[in-house]
């Protein structure tokens, strides 16, 4: 039963790569957005807030189609990126990472925003009176104190990215070796006669990855809490 075929390995590796890249790229952006939403009032804030949560409530196939319209070869942004920077998303693994990043963004931002809101602003004021400019206040006080939330957001985002299916398959299709992740591989396998055993193997693998992510997040969170409040 546990004879994982090369195609299946490819899908597993691709899923891990897509989810890792999506999480690593989305995290700094997510921290910035979370900080803005937690600490600043600006015109159009509720619109930004809604836009970020949109992928959570839209049908994934709609998000995927919108990505295709925007970032496809003939899309407004996609065409420009391809012509000027040589970055292509359509039907590439990078497109899968983009789709996963967009879909997991709300889950990534929320815990980070909550943890930044929970950081005592009086500590930030104290840091300012000690000579720290706003950027250094953020780096030395806000971010370290919000670290458990950042890690929680990263794990949630990663888990969502690993499991993403609808937007990815709509945007970049289901090409073995390029855009076929674990989820789309399972989808293909259960539509193939005699694909059951292989599908089950992939199911077990995705359960293992999810469990590993949860255990890792527990461990990181405990460590971060000990560092922050280590008495």
């Amino acid at each position, binding site marked *: 039963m546990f004879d994982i075929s090369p195609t299946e390995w490819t899908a597993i590796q691709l899923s891990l790569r897509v989810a890792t890249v999506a999480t690593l790229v989305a995290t700094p952006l997510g921290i910035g957005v979370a900080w803005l939403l937690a600490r600043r009032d600006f015109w159009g804030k509720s619109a930004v807030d809604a836009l970020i949560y949109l992928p959570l409530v839209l049908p994934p196939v709609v998000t995927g189609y919108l990505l295709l319209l925007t970032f496809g070869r003939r899309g407004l942004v996609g065409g420009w990126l391809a012509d000027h920077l040589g970055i292509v998303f359509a039907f590439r693994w990078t497109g899968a990472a983009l789709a996963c990043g967009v879909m997991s963004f709300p889950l990534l931002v929320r815990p980070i925003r909550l943890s930044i809101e929970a950081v005592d602003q009086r500590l930030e004021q104290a840091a300012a009176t000690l000579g720290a400019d706003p950027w250094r*206040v953020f780096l030395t006080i806000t971010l370290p104190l919000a670290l458990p939330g950042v890690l929680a957001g990263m794990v949630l985002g990663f888990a969502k990215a690993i499991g993403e299916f609808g937007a990815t398959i709509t945007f970049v299709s289901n090409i073995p070796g390029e855009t076929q992740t674990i989820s789309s591989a399972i989808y293909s396998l259960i539509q193939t006669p005699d694909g059951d055993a292989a599908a089950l193997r992939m199911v077990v693998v995705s359960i293992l990855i999810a469990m590993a992510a949860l255990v890792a997040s527990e461990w990181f969170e405990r460590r971060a809490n000990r560092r922050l*409040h280590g008495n």
Partner: protein
Amino acid sequence: MLRVDVSKQLGEFAIEASFASEGQVTGLFGASGAGKTSIISMIAGLLRPDRGTIAIDGETLDDCAARVHVPAHRRRIGYVFQDVRLFPHLDVRHNLDYGRRMNRLGDDPAQRARVTDLLDIASLLDRRPGQLSGGERQRVALGRALLARPRLLLLDEPLGSLDEGRKAEILPYLVRLRDEVGVPMVYVCHDPDEMRLLATQIVMLQRGRVTAFGGAEVLRRSESN
């Protein structure tokens, strides 16, 4: 020389305060709700006045008419808060070192030793704020503010959160601070005995306004009223 001439509306409460002080320790004296904390927050740059000016040694920190507002982190004004505000994720050593690092000052072990000796906190360096008593925390907060080498030190009821025994423990350190460290201070409190012991000039505040200014006789007058 500290010059304050500001007004600030905070909801229903209005502050109209004007004074200039050259004393080593300027005491801001008044009942709670007199606007003491708001005034030193403005001196620190954490609160922006609606109108007026704040200047220290001839340097303008706030001038609302000219749209000047030096941000808190560029003022070099130390602030010891009533609620202490040590950084919980840093041990005492790094709390003390924070201001030096943020101001990009060179390491000065002699200065550090002087301050930790003065405040008797050398034995606490490896502890976290969560492991300190109330009095120890307040002493570390004093050290942290001093080691950023401020040109003015604001003390907002530093004994306010302590019980009588702890107050008696900290007071001698404040006297030493006044007599041995050359940093001018603004000392906020509502206890006349503390004021008498520490302040060299007293600004009396009532409902956001300065009602008297001078030496210890200001306190006598307020008590006879």
